[in-house]
């Protein structure tokens, strides 16, 4: 007889399962955390290497000469920007046309659901200016994009200046096989989103824009510049994009190869690589870099302009110039040469970047961990949920001889099962829907009655609905049939555990960091909660492990890792702004973190909260 169909053997296995359940769960949890932290340890990581043949074996001498002229252009740009009080569209168009590019503009406008703290108005209007450098001998089938944002005030002038300098230099070369688009966009990410939507003829986010007059073919790769000063000490690479999507690792390898060739310091997450991996400080440094990447990826927001390109399968990265207190400074000519080299190598591409990894974590710029190595950490956490579910299934299958009331005994397991489970599930999800829709919808009413701004109204409404959900079990007890039965809460917990496992699994496949962070806090809560644990203590523990508090911890951790620690009050304000930014990102760019948390994760957590207050 088979292992599972032999009743004796099955009983032996199930008894083993129920006996050893808790120890195995604890071991799995600790192993999962340890595995994750061990990923930053250098011997467990791989060295990065260039996978694409077309980019690896070609080496070019960079000859960009005019860094100083680029800086002069930047000063001119700054002057015109101040004169116009926004984006100097006419000056940009005139300059690009003088360089021989085909220049076009695009105007866009967007109604924000509520005014952002930085924008403080409901409607954002702007213009994008882009010039196309046509490849002299190639057909117009492929393109590369170089973009620099036009930011208000005094920031990013040098980026636009360098962009224009590069455009002039590139115009006089004959070896371009792809068209190059030089994009200067207004209002940062909103401008980029409008341009991309116009370029690809889509309308995902409800943006209003004029159609693009000039087009260059399918975009193979994009680079975004952010430069604030004339000289930089290091260049920072930003990879995390919308919804935690990452560009192909070859782009990071390309950046690193050129930094090494030109002798420029390059960093990732703002941290330089250390060579002492076997010391505690070295390990902590790598772990900090990796945790920063995990937190940034989990937030689901695009951390640079490149983040919005990734949705269209365009490999993109942002390069940020950092001017810190170091002796060795790099001038604009070297940065220009770096970009020249990178664009020239991207020019040699024959297909889109696809040879290297798309899912990875980087403890430093030269070391990476691929999905095959980091997924087991998450798998170990999910195993806990499955073990608990199995345990419950076994218990449900064999009715216990002693019950507190005689109602549950003798009944088949499924009859109080599904129907009674349906009610808490529906109620929790309705709360989730309320959490998703009400904050934005009711901001007007809130502003009427309370002395708060719209942003604060939205955020505070969200928090209010979140805490109101905590009171649900008291109010909905009457509606739940099979109330107070042992079977009832077991079935509910079984359903909730499986639901959570599927949810976290799907999230981790798309955005590993988000799935892992949610798993770290939700899995212990889900595994341990029963109606029999002491109520007050476990209620506090459940609240502390809820998704909202997870976001709070992440905010504090992020600040800590950035070496800008904040006090409790500042942290709270940051937390509120993170929530508002999340809602805004969802409305503007289609980020999925806020709907995921509100519509799926929060109701799941509410189910466990219901189980806690089952009696």
């Amino acid at each position: 007889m088979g292992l599972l169909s032999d009743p004796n053997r099955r009983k032996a296995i199930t008894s083993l399962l129920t006996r050893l359940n808790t120890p195995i769960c604890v071991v799995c949890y600790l192993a999962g955390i340890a595995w994750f932290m061990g990923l930053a340890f250098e011997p467990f990581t791989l060295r990065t290497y260039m996978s694409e043949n077309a980019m690896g074996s070609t080496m070019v001498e960079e000859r960009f000469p005019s860094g100083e002229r680029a800086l002069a252009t930047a000063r001119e740009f700054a002057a015109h920007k101040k004169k116009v009080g926004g984006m100097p569209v006419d000056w940009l168009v005139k300059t690009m046309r003088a360089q021989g590019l085909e220049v076009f503009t695009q105007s866009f406008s967007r109604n924000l659901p509520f005014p952002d703290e930085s924008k403080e108005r409901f409607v954002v209007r702007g213009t994008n200016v882009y010039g196309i450098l046509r490849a002299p001998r190639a057909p117009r089938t492929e393109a590369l994009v170089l973009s620099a944002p036009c930011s208000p005030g005094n920031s990013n002038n040098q980026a636009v200046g360098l962009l224009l300098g590069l455009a002039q230099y590139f115009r006089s070369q004959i070896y371009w096989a792809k068209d190059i688009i030089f994009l200067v966009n207004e209002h940062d990410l909103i401008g980029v989103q409008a341009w991309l939507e116009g370029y690809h003829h889509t309308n995902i986010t409800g943006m209003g824009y004029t159609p693009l007059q000039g087009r260059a073919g399918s975009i193979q790769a994009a680079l975004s510049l952010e430069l604030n000063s004339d000289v930089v000490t290091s260049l920072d690479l930003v990879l995390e994009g919308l919804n935690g999507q990452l560009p192909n690792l070859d782009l990071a390898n390309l950046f690193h190869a050129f930094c090494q060739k030109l002798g420029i310091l390059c960093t990732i997450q703002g941290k330089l690589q250390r060579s002492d991996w076997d010391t505690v400080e070295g390990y902590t440094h790598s772990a900090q870099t990796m945790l920063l990447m995990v937190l940034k990826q989990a937030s689901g927001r695009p951390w640079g302009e490149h983040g919005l390109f990734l949705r269209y399968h365009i490999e993109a990265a942002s390069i940020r110039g950092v001017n810190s207190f170091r002796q060795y400074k790099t001038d604009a000519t070297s940065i220009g040469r770096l970009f020249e080299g990178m664009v020239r190598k991207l020019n040699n591409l024959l297909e889109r970047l696809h040879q290297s990894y798309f899912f990875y974590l980087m403890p430093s710029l030269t070391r990476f961990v691929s999905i095959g190595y980091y997924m087991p950490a998450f798998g170990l956490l999910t195993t806990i949920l499955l073990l608990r579910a199995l345990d419950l299934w076994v218990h449900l299958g064999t009715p216990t001889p002693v019950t507190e009331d005689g109602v549950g005994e003798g009944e088949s397991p499924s009859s109080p099962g599904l129907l009674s489970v349906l009610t808490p599930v529906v109620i929790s999800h309705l709360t989730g829907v309320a959490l998703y829709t009400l904050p934005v919808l009711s901001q007007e009413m809130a502003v009427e009655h309370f002395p708060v701004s719209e942003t604060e109204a939205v955020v505070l409404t969200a928090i209010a609905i979140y805490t109101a959900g905590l009171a649900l079990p008291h109010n909905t007890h009457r509606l739940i049939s099979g109330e107070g039965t042992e079977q009832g809460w077991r079935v509910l917990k079984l359903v909730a555990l499986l639901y959570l496992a599927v949810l976290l699994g799907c999230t981790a496949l798309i955005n590993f960091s988000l799935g892992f962070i949610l798993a770290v806090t939700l899995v212990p809560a889900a595994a341990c909660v029963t109606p029999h644990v002491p109520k007050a203590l476990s209620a506090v523990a459940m609240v502390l492990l809820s998704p909202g508090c997870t976001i709070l911890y992440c905010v504090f951790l992020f600040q800590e890792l950035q070496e800008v620690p904040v006090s409790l009050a500042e942290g709270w304000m940051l937390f509120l702004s993170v929530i508002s930014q999340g809602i805004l990102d969802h409305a503007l760019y289609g980020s999925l973190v806020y709907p995921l948390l509100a519509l799926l994760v929060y109701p799941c957590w509410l189910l466990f909260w219901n189980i806690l207050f089952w009696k």
Partner: protein
Amino acid sequence: MVLLFVCFCLFVCFSLLVLLELSLMLALLTKATQFFSSGHTNNWAVLVCTSRFWFNYRHVANVLSVYRSVKRLGIPDSHIVLMLADDMACNHRNPKPATVFSHKNMELNVYGDDVEVDYRGYEVTVENFLRVLTGRLPPSTPRSKRLLSDDRSNILIYLTGHGGNGFLKFQDSEEISNVELADAFEQMWQKRRYNELLFIIDTCQGASMYERFYSPNIMALASSQVGEDSLSHQPDLAIGVHLMDRYTFYLLEFLEDIHPASQANMNDLFKVCPKSQCVSTPGHRTDLFLRDPGSVLITDFFGSVRKVEITREAINLTNPTELSLRNELKSEALFYVDQLPVADIIHQKPKQKDWHPPDGFILGLWSLILLVFFKTYGIKHLKHIF
């Protein structure tokens, strides 16, 4: 006494003269035998570059440098089949359009302005290559795409690209194996399409490609042994690619010193690019070749040397009628072997041969049948039949 002495001197002088003349004649004879020893009357070259894409610039430069040497040494374009899998000179990424350089700092442009490419781009496939070698081309193929060699042709075949143990990659999508190549050469031998063949290959693990040859009169050279990679020579930082492979680079340097009258032989060619320069170990194979490699001139394969003998004495031409009589007598002795034994293939009705009595097997078979027949039906029944 004096008479004797004079006779003796005369005798010595006479013998010396005779010896001198004999040695002269011997020298002339060896020179003459050497002169006519190679046995070929025309030269062909098949030069193939099998890889495409911009970063494989060096393979095209390899083939073009061999093309340049071969053309310089006298083989005309009509006798060269040049197959290039991609166009590097007019590639969009080439900062120096219409040129293909073999030395950095752009010393030598091997593309020139009189290149004739016979198979270009996607026409360079395994099938086309094998058809060129075996001559099985559709009737519409132009002459420039055919290898019109005969049994007195010396053919140089040069292949370069990406290869592995036992195969050569064509166009990033298909491969030719060493077995196929050996069979193609055997087909060429059976169809009398070459007199002698020199096969040079510059790929990784190139020696594996000549391991399987089994036809006579083939000499093979490769740039690396099995398990070794052939390395590229030098990158040019203005163009941004590696310009040549090491083996062909030093081969080109060697060939630049060869002129049509040069007496360099194959042993010098085997010494091209030792391990110190090439990093890989070049190999060669001469066991199938009938002549001694030391007596084979480089120009036997790389050049197209017309053999001219200047004679200062009058030659007596015999009467043409006498000549024809003599030829008739000899005409029966020479004939071509049946190149396509149709009778074997189609199983035609055999011609009327003399009757032979049935041999043992047929006899035994029939006796067995008869025995069985009689056993079954019994002898006694025979009386009723007969």
